């Protein structure tokens, strides 16, 4: 069964030029200059329980698509069905079926304690008291937020707040979780913890996850499929393993060791730089999965610190884009 189906979804905005001047000048109608196409002819389908990354560079149309899927933005044309509802026509009914987390926006009330915000959300969504208590207990355990419940949201660190935000989005028991840049601004440890929590959630509860992110780590750790868009149009829709094999190039691992002259050999791994107590490896992820290389390094070397340098996503997109342009040119020829 499909959790989301999208067909020929298009959104354009009129680019209007505001008149210069103060308040009264703003009362005059803005000059309408042209239409800006943000999402064009987008079609895809996501099955229930899938974990899908929705990725693309800045301005690709990810957030606009997400807004259309949640019903807070109406498309110019095309159709979509989310959890059985047409989002922009049945926004309020849809709200009960989906959970949404915008990494840069909060749904918690800053001046209230986290527990108060949760209680309020439970009531807003009409969650029955016993169900609410059980669900809250599970979410507290899953996201390890027991110690945060009596703190005001304004006092939380970004990582703590995001764990609470995701728990808040799940309080009404949605079958679909939409996440817009959930790890933005988090440090490495907080990112890893949040990814683990999301992974466990999806695997154990069967929650469908649609995630937008610039972070390849989010995509690799959480998702099994990637939909890549660029300039509002669908570029690729592939299982993650295939995407990695096709487009992710080598990644760098920096190992700081207690060993003065560290050495490391592994199929698919080349040494980029070797210094006293430090070695930089280039891992060809097509042949050597990064997790296996890290495990081998930790086993063989006395590692003091380890840094995995992600391939900048812009690079991945460029590679994909170059590849697709080349393929299209080839097909045309």
């Amino acid at each position, binding site marked *: 069964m499909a959790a989301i189906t999208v067909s020929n979804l298009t959104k354009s*905005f009129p680019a209007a030029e505001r008149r210069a001047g103060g*308040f009264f000048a*703003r*009362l005059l109608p803005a000059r309408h200059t042209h239409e800006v196409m943000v999402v064009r002819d987008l079609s895809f389908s996501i099955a229930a329980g899938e974990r899908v990354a929705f990725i693309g560079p800045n301005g690709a149309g990810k957030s*606009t698509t997400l*807004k259309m899927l*949640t*019903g*807070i*933005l*109406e498309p110019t044309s095309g159709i979509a069905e989310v959890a059985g509802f047409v989002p*922009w026509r049945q*926004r*309020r*009914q849809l*709200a*009960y079926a989906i959970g*949404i987390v*915008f990494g840069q*926006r*909060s*749904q918690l*009330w800053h*001046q*209230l304690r986290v527990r*108060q915000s949760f*209680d*309020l959300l439970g*009531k*807003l*969504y*009409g969650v029955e008291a016993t169900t609410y208590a059980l669900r809250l207990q599970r979410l507290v355990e899953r996201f390890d937020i027991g110690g945060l419940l009596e703190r005001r949201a304004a006092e939380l660190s970004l990582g703590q707040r995001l764990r609470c935000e995701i728990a808040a989005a799940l309080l009404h028991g949605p079958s679909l979780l939409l996440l817009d840049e959930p790890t933005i601004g988090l440090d490495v440890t907080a990112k890893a913890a949040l990814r683990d929590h999301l992974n466990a959630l999806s695997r154990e509860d069967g929650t469908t996850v649609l995630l937008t992110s610039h972070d390849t780590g989010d995509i690799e750790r959480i998702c099994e499929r990637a939909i890549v868009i660029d300039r509002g149009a669908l570029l690729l829709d592939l299982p993650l393993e295939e995407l990695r094999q096709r487009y992710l190039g080598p990644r760098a691992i920096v190992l700081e060791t207690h060993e003065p002259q560290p050495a490391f050999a592994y199929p698919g791994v080349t040494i980029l730089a070797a210094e006293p107590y430090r070695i930089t490896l280039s891992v060809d992820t097509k042949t050597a999965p990064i997790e296996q290389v890290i495990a081998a390094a930790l086993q063989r070397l006395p590692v003091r610190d380890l840094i995995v340098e992600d391939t900048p996503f812009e690079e991945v997109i460029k590679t994909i884009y170059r590849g697709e342009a080349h393929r299209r040119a080839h097909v045309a020829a």
Partner: protein
Amino acid sequence: MWRRELQALFACWRLGWDQAREQRMAVLGQSVLYGVVLAIFWALWTATPIHELQGWTPTREELLWYLAITEWIVFVAGARYRQVEAEITSGAIESALLRPLPHGLATLARWSGNTAWYMAVMAVVGMAAAWLLTGHAPPHPLRAPLVVLSAALALLLILMCQLQLGYVAVWFGVSGPVFWIWQKLLFVFGGLQFPLLLYPDLLRRVAENSPFAAMLFAPGSLVLDSGAGIVGLFAGQLLWLAILGAMTLAVSRAVTARLVRTGG
């Protein structure tokens, strides 16, 4: 379905109440200012030969109690439109649209809870200050429940206006200038410091037929021996409640439609 929505509305009301309880310093500051305003006008009217005015003239004690009620409403109402304006300009309104309760209804419920707490606290402050200054109990003390009911209706009218004023930011980017015009009209046509009964005939008729009279003059006039019919005052308030309620609903829908069409 209705039960679930009513529970959600009550939860919003409760949130407003709890938020008001947390704002202790704001309440303290407003209470002091409220008391100072009453003291200044009491001193002014003591030094002014009010009784020499032509026609019906309230005593200065009646005037102070009238002012205590109208200022009570003005202080409790505040400038809440700014919250909606900020939600719109920051884009935070999108989060509210994602919830199952309409934004306008949820906001009004929250503001009502907030207002209820402020009403209770500021009523004590105003009553104490007016009693202390005049040395007398309020005129017609048995009308106190009617004053509270009328003030609650007046505040509901003001909150609906403020919600619409906040929504103006969707079209103009700011609400402030429209709010200031509305506030001056409230001041003049609502009869904030002098009852409408003291106005020149034409202005009085215009004012009495405006919604502003239902927001300030109606509850204030309950302490005056003005001859104005109590039933008429409440009927006027209920009429404006219906009109402004319909307008608020229409504006709220227009705002949502625009946001959904053009984005936050």
